[in-house]
Structures are given as structure tokens and as C-alpha cells.
């Protein structure tokens, strides 16, 4: 039922609200910011619906750090299917990196480019795109786990993309820790297997990791990116090893 609303909502909004916003006056940057706020609001509505349906219960910690962040790379672990929806619902200015193949879909392409999302093209083009989007104060959401956490693991091994983008675009990383108490909506279950028990999810915003702490010189980026990725992994492992405080 929730999925139907999500799908229909997505279809309807891309047919109605989003095209209107696209041609609404303003600079390209203003229009992108407007669409991002709209998507955030729609996702907020969706999260409210999920809460009402008893699927998920979201609580936050240090949310102000996330809401006032601009042009940061927002990194999060990825326990469930709805992580990105929850995160974007809490951020008025979120961007993502989206599979390039979706750009070939004529229905989706319009929406994606209006909201300032980035296709995962070749490495150098991707870095250019990220630089440009971050400069416009969009926060880029990246899940370094690459896919949802394997059940039983605290995290999957991190890929180095987020660290590489941070170092090469000189951007700080804002780590967000998603703590869930019951497993559900994971990669190992079908999307329609909704857990019987409500998933309590705490969204805890950490302090930003400054790119300046990592001394990048010409030619050592690959090495430093590995270091930063290790540090990030360590941070998540330390923070996720303890059970969810508020629900203990």
C-alpha cells in the first residue's frame, strides 16, 4: 500500500508539480533548490505515512547539523530500503548520484536533472559534476557501503568513492549514523516483506570530518582516500557496535 502511494505519488508529481516548478521563473540554481525542497517535502509526507502505518519510527539526534549543512558530502550507513527517503526528508538541499542508465529513461531524466542529481559517469566526469553541484550548496548523499548492509554485519566494507570525492573536491564529510533496532526492509528480504514489528530508526548526525585534516599533495590522493575510508569505517564500527540507546 505504501509502495503504491510512493509509486503513484512519484508518477503524479513528475507529471504535475515538477514540470510546473521546472518552468517557474528563477535562475537554474533557484529552480534546482526549489525542486530539492519539494522532493524533501514529498519524502517527508511519505515518512509520515510510513510512521502512521507503523512501519518505521524515526527519531533524530543533532539534526540541526544536517539541516544547516551546505555543500557537504553526507555519508550514511545503509541498513534499510527507506534510508535515502528518510535522509532526504530531513534535508531541504539533497543531491544524489544516480545510476547512469536512468538518464536514458526519458520520463525520469527530466526529473533527475531538475533536482540537480548526478549520473555516475566515468570517474573524471563524475568528479566534475560533484564539484559543480557541491558549489551550489547541495549536499551529496553517499552510502559508501554501496548497497544495503548484509544482515548480521554492522556495515559492509566501504567503497572509496565518497572519500575520493571529498578529497578531490575539497569538501567536508558529514557522517550520519542510522541505527535500527529490528532488522527489516533489508537487501536479503523482498521489498514487500514488511516487518511485523515497527523499525525504530535513529538518525544521528555526527560532526563533520574536515578534508583539511588529510594532507593531500599532488599524486598521493589514492593513498589518502584509503586512509580516510578506513577512518570512516572505523567511525561507523565504533558507533554501531552499541545497541540503540534510546530503545534499550
Amino acid at each position, binding site marked *: 500500500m505504501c509502495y503504491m502511494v510512493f509509486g503513484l505519488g512519484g508518477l503524479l508529481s513528475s507529471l504535475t508539480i515538477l514540470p510546473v516548478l521546472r518552468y517557474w521563473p528563477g535562475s537554474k540554481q533557484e529552480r534546482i533548490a526549489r525542486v530539492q525542497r519539494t522532493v524533501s517535502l514529498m519524502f517527508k509526507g511519505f515518512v509520515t505515512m510510513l510512521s502512521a502505518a507503523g512501519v518505521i519510527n524515526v527519531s533524530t539526534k543533532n539534526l540541526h547539523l544536517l539541516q544547516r549543512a551546505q555543500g557537504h558530502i553526507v555519508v550514511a550507513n545503509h541498513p534499510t530500503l527507506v534510508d535515502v527517503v528518510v535522509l532526504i526528508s530531513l534535508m531541504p538541499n539533497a543531491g544524489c548520484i544516480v545510476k547512469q542508465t536512468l538518464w536514458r529513461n526519458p520520463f525520469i531524466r527530466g526529473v533527475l536533472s531538475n533536482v540537480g542529481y548526478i549520473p555516475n559517469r566515468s570517474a573524471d566526469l563524475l568528479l566534475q559534476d560533484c564539484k559543480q553541484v557541491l558549489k551550489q550548496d547541495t549536499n551529496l548523499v553517499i552510502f559508501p557501503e554501496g548497497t544495503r548492509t548484509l544482515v548480521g554485519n554492522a556495515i559492509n566494507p566501504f567503497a572509496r*568513492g565518497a572519500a575520493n570525492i571529498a578529497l578531490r573536491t575539497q569538501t567536508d564529510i558529514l557522517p550520519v549514523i542510522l541505527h535500527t533496532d529490528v532488522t527489516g526492509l533489508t537487501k536479503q528480504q523482498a521489498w514487500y516483506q514488511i516487518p511485523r514489528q515497527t523499525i525504530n530508526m535513529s538518525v544521528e548526525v555526527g560532526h563533520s570530518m574536515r578534508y583539511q585534516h588529510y594532507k593531500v599533495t599532488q599524486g*598521493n590522493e*589514492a593513498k589518502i582516500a584509503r586512509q580516510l575510508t578506513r577512518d570512516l569505517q572505523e567511525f561507523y564500527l565504533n558507533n554501531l557496535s552499541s545497541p540503540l540507546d534510546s530503545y534499550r
Partner: protein
Amino acid sequence: MQNRDQILAMLSTILVDEFEIDPADIRPDASLYEELDLDSIDAVDLVIKLQQLTGKKIQPEEFKTVRTVNDVVNAIEGLMQS
């Protein structure tokens, strides 16, 4: 840098020094992306390093098909002869 051994030695040095790869893992048939855990950004860096060391321009297309350590050696060898 004429023969394959020298090319391989140069490549190994880069992989160990810049990409923290264990020298023991560097075999001719080792896959760069799976076994040596390079990602697409590393690949761009590797091409830049190889260009600097060989003084030859490497076309991205030529490197698209490169999968293993041996493929890199072949590509560089081809460049040096051309």
C-alpha cells in the same frame, strides 16, 4: 623502459607505493578491479602515473579493455613501440 620485465617492475612499484597493494598479490593474471581492489578513480590515477613515467599519451579508450596486470603491461609495451 623497453622490455616487459621493466614495465612490470614499474607498474608494481606504482601499485605498491600509491595504491597500497600487497606485492605478493601482483601476478600477471591478477584482475585490477576485483583482486587488486582498484576503483574507477584509481584507474584514472594509474593512467596519469603511467603517462608521467612513460612520457606517452594514453587514450582512455585504449585503457577501457584493460582488466589485468598483464593487460596493462601489454598496453604500455604497445605504446612504447609505436
